[in-house]
């Protein structure tokens, strides 16, 4: 089996700060995703990458940048943290294909003071 590692687990930032979240997977999966999880709003897709060197915007990409440095890693940057923002960011990966399962990391919990 494989694992998805997200760092850091907890991230505290200041308003206006640029913050980077990292994700590594050893499944050798092609596709990686970043989701934001807010209570009552489900999992909203921020960015995804179908293969290495690919980058696709999701529904919530404004205010974020992403980078697929290599097949195993996918980073997300909050370009300017919003005051009082609190959310969990989940990274996931999957084999490319129609019925593939998403495997999720344990998440990064962001708090902006």
């Amino acid at each position: 089996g494989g694992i998805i590692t997200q760092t850091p687990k907890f991230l505290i930032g200041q308003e206006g700060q640029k913050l980077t979240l990292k994700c590594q997977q050893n499944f050798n999966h092609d596709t990686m995703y970043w989701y934001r999880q807010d209570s009552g709003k489900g999992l909203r897709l921020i960015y995804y990458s179908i293969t290495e060197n690919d980058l696709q915007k999701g529904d919530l990409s404004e205010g974020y940048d992403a980078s697929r440095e290599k097949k195993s890693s996918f980073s997300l940057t909050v370009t300017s943290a919003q005051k009082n923002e609190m959310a969990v960011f989940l990274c996931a990966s999957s084999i490319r294909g129609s019925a593939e399962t998403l495997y999720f990391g344990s998440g990064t919990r962001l708090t902006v003071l």
Partner: protein
Amino acid sequence: GDSVTQTEGLVTLTEGLPVMLNCTYQTIYSNPFLFWYVQHLNESPRLLLKSFTDNKRTEHQGFHATLHKSSSSFHLQKSSAQLSDSALYYCALRGSALGRLHFGAGTQLIVIP
């Protein structure tokens, strides 16, 4: 575009009673793929079951769901709720083979003794 609707934000049940969590979807594609993910407290979402065959019952870990294309539904059911079923349940849709996954807002299931 593709979308998923989970009508109940919160379902509270007494242990032993049947579970039914609603999921309906919209897509222009004729062969969608439907998924249920479950997220227990302080854990990551994980796949519970999936289906892409019309009118075929899919079962896993005591839960079952049947994709009904005629009504665009994929409701999650279990005959008898257990305390350990308390979790957040997400219905998800992939409309086309290489399309992205769309999650519903989630249903929080709480099972009480």
